């Protein structure tokens, strides 16, 4: 599952999928609503709630299909990471293993990141930025997105994440930095791994980083 403003064909999302395909898994990818993929909605309406509900709805739909298999593996990046993990906390028996990559841990921790753009976002009411994944697209997100995000926190129910969990984060990630991942990692009760990708930012774009991530996934899948 992609992150905020992402889509199912992003190279890192493709990379996660490719590793599972090579290990003979059936793979479902989707575009949430309110992003820049092929689904309905406007980016400025994007919330953690709508991303999470879309994940639940896709899984409900999948359950009625002939290829559905439970328990399944969930993987997501950033906002998709917290949504995958929230689902696993709510329905732990349905989830065989979980890979929240560069995951948002909580709205509170997002708010605490010492980033100029977060401060400016609160001050002006809007976060306006260029999409790196879709050149030419301007992303406009209201501060109300943060109000919604503050309702979510993985830590209070982290003990429910008893399945194997794979965490990966870029060394230079300043959105969901390694320190946030370490807070989550230390509280996870089951089999767990944390990998830090040297030189990478929040979204993995360089081929050498994608290759490294794919190998981490391939090795992890073998252990499931």
């Amino acid at each position, binding site marked *: *599952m992609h992150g905020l403003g992402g889509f*199912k064909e992003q190279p890192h999302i493709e990379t*996660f*999928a490719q590793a*599972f*395909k090579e*290990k*003979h*898994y*059936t*793979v*479902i*990818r*989707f*575009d*949430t*609503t309110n992003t820049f*993929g*092929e*689904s*309905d*909605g406007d980016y400025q309406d994007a919330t953690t709630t709508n991303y999470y*509900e*879309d*994940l639940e*709805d*896709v*899984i*409900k*739909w*999948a359950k*009625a*299909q*002939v*290829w*559905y*298999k*439970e328990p*399944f*593996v*969930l*993987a997501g990046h950033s906002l998709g990471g917290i949504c995958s993990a929230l689902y696993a906390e709510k329905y732990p028996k349905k989830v*065989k293993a979980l890979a929240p990559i560069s995951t948002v841990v909580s709205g509170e921790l997002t708010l605490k990141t010492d980033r100029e753009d977060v401060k400016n976002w609160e001050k002006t009411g809007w976060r306006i930025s260029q999409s790196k994944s879709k050149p030419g697209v301007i992303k406009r997100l209201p501060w109300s997105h943060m109000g919604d995000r503050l309702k979510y926190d993985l830590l209070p129910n982290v003990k429910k994440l008893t399945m194997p969990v794979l965490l990966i984060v870029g060394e230079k990630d300043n959105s969901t930095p390694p320190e946030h991942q370490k807070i989550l990692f230390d509280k996870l009760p089951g089999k767990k791994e944390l990998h830090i990708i040297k030189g990478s930012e929040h979204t993995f774009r360089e081929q050498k980083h994608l290759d490294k991530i794919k190998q981490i996934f391939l090795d992890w899948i073998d252990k*499931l």
Partner: protein
Amino acid sequence: MKNFINNMKISKLKKGKIKNRRGQNIAVLLEEAENPKGLLL
């Protein structure tokens, strides 16, 4: 949920749209393995 593409033979579908609880379209991509060892979402 009944507006979802449940009537189609999903095993042959690679790309399609389903409805979420708000009636919006969600674009879904299925890559089905032969003799699958599991499912990734």
